[in-house]
Every structure is written in C-alpha cells, then in structure tokens.
C-alpha cells in the first residue's frame, strides 16, 4: 500500500504523468460530484422539512454553506501547496496553488453574495460592516484578489511562485479567524451548523443528509475544477519542453 502511494505521489509530481493521468481523475471526481449536488439540491429544496425558526428561508443553507466551506478549503489548499512548492521545490505544487486561486475567489464571492441575500431576508440588511464573520470573509476575497494580482505583476514564474506562496501562507492566519469569529465576537451570523460541540446543529436527518450531499458534491466538483485548471497551468509552464512538443505533434490539436 505504502509503496503504491509513494509510486502514485512520484508519478503525480511529474508534470507529464500528471497531465496524462488527470483526465481520469477529473472524470471520477466530476461525475459523482455533480450527481451529489443534484441530489442534495433537490432533496434540500423540495423534500427537507421546514426549519422551526427560519421557515423556508433556511433552504439557502444548501448553497451558502458549501460555498463558504469551499472558499476556506481553496485557500488552505493554496497555502499548503505554496508551502510544499517553497520547501520541496515541487513545480506541480505551485501550479496547483495558482490554479486554486481563481476557483477560491469565485466561491468566496458566492459565499458573500448568497450570505448577503440570506441576510436580507432574515436580518433585514444586505450587509453589516461591524460583523466579524462577514468582514473576515471579505478579507479572504481580498487575499485571493491580492494573490492573483501579485502573480500577474511578476513576469518571472519562479519569482512569482515564491512571492505568492509567502503571501498565501501568511494569509492563512485568516482561516481560523473566519471559522471562530462567531464564537470569539458578538455576531449577527449564526454559529457553526455542522461542527458544533455535542454533535451537529441539524437534528433532522432529512435536513442534514442533503446538506452533507451538497458539501461532498461541491468538494468533488472543486477537485475536478482544480485538476482541470492545474492541467492548463502545467501546459503553460512546460510549453517549451520536449514532452509537450511530442504531445502536440502526436495528437494533432487534441491535447
């Protein structure tokens, strides 16, 4: 088992192997991912019982929570991949970090926008500047934008990789702040739904299972999106190498 994992790690760390293997992984992640999202959305929006406190409005949880969770996960992947790239000088790790940024930014925007819509219907306000959860999530959006701007501003890829990896690792301090902000400070935002002491905040399984399905579904779909972007990033970085040239000449336009 360990030998197999070690072999897989070395194979995936090599750009040509990664490029050839990744379409299989993309398919295996995307299909169950989108099926789970479909199931979770239908079960959550149509069949899940109405919440006692929020009524029908609680159904926004099925899009808001996965988006918020993925925004943080994307940042952690970006920071960890950046760290691996800095320490072990793995080229593929920097490609993964660079690919995670635009997806993470999109999900952070989604978390803020759906949260704002939910806030408008329950709190009666679209935005609250003094709320720690909202502000820390907004900082996360700026960190993603800053990361991408920094990468775009440096022409040399190696220097851009190093500088952006440092920024990603320093910015990771914001992740626990986002998660614990509702516990550390007074907030309009409700407490954690799933990661609560003494079990989940959702007691009804008809509400909980669709939520878990969309969370896992979005995670798989995120994996597929990340691999798809990392593939392109690898191609850009390796465009002058022999294997890319051979690939182009052998595939006749179908890369």
């Amino acid at each position, binding site marked *: 088992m360990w030998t197999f994992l070690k072999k897989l790690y070395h194979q995936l760390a090599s750009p040509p192997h990664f490029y050839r293997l990744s379409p299989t992984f993309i398919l295996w992640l995307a299909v169950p991912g989108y099926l789970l999202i479909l199931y979770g*959305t239908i079960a959550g*929006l149509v069949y899940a019982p109405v919440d006692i406190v929020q*009524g*029908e*409005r609680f*159904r*926004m949880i099925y*899009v*808001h929570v996965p*988006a918020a969770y993925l925004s943080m996960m994307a940042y952690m992947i970006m920071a960890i991949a950046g760290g691996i790239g800095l320490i072990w000088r793995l080229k593929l790790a920097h490609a993964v970090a660079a690919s995670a940024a*635009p*997806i993470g930014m*999109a*999900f952070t*925007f*989604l978390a803020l*926008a*759906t949260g704002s*819509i*939910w806030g*408008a*219907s329950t709190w*009666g306000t679209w935005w609250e500047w003094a709320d720690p959860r909202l502000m820390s999530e907004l900082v996360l959006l700026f960190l993603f934008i800053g990361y991408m701007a920094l990468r775009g501003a440096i022409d040399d890829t190696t220097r851009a990789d190093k500088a952006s990896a440092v920024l990603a690792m320093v910015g990771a301090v914001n992740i626990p702040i986002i998660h614990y902000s509702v516990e550390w400070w007074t907030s309009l935002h409700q407490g954690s739904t799933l990661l609560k002491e003494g079990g989940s905040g959702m007691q009804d399984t008809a509400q909980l299972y669709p939520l878990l399905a969309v969370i896992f579904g979005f995670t798989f*779909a995120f994996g597929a*999106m990340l691999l*798809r*972007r990392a*593939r*392109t990033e690898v*191609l*850009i970085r390796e*465009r002058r190498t022999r294997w*890319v*040239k051979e690939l*182009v*000449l052998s595939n006749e*336009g179908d*890369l």
Partner: protein
Amino acid sequence: MNKAILVGFIAGIAFFVRQIVKAIYLEVPTESPWTYISACVILTALVVAFIEWHARRHHRNICRDIEVRVKAVEERL
C-alpha cells in the same frame, strides 16, 4: 451548442437580476422566501457554470497557442 449555452447563461443572469430586484423592492421581506432562495440557487449555478466554461476555454486557447508555435518551429526546421 455554444449558442445554446450562451442563451441559457444570459437567461439565467436575467432571471437572477429579476429576483434580486424583486427582493430589494419587496416591502415585507418575510412574505416571499422563495425569491431569495431562487436567487441564491441561480447565482450558484451561474458561477459554477462560469468557472467550468472559463477553465475549458482557457485550456483550449493555450493548446491552440502551443500548437501554432510548435508547428511554426517544425516548419522552419
């Protein structure tokens, strides 16, 4: 196929804008939770579709660019 995706995308954006405008101008927000729920779901679908479409288009453009360069070098040799 691309035209159908584009039409669907524009229709989705138009519906999302309609739902948001409706939500903003609702005098009593508690009366219509489905306006907000549908706005959230449509926005999520649009963003996910955009991420997928952009990734595919970017990959296609890069492939085309590399192909043109490699073939130009080959022809010169």
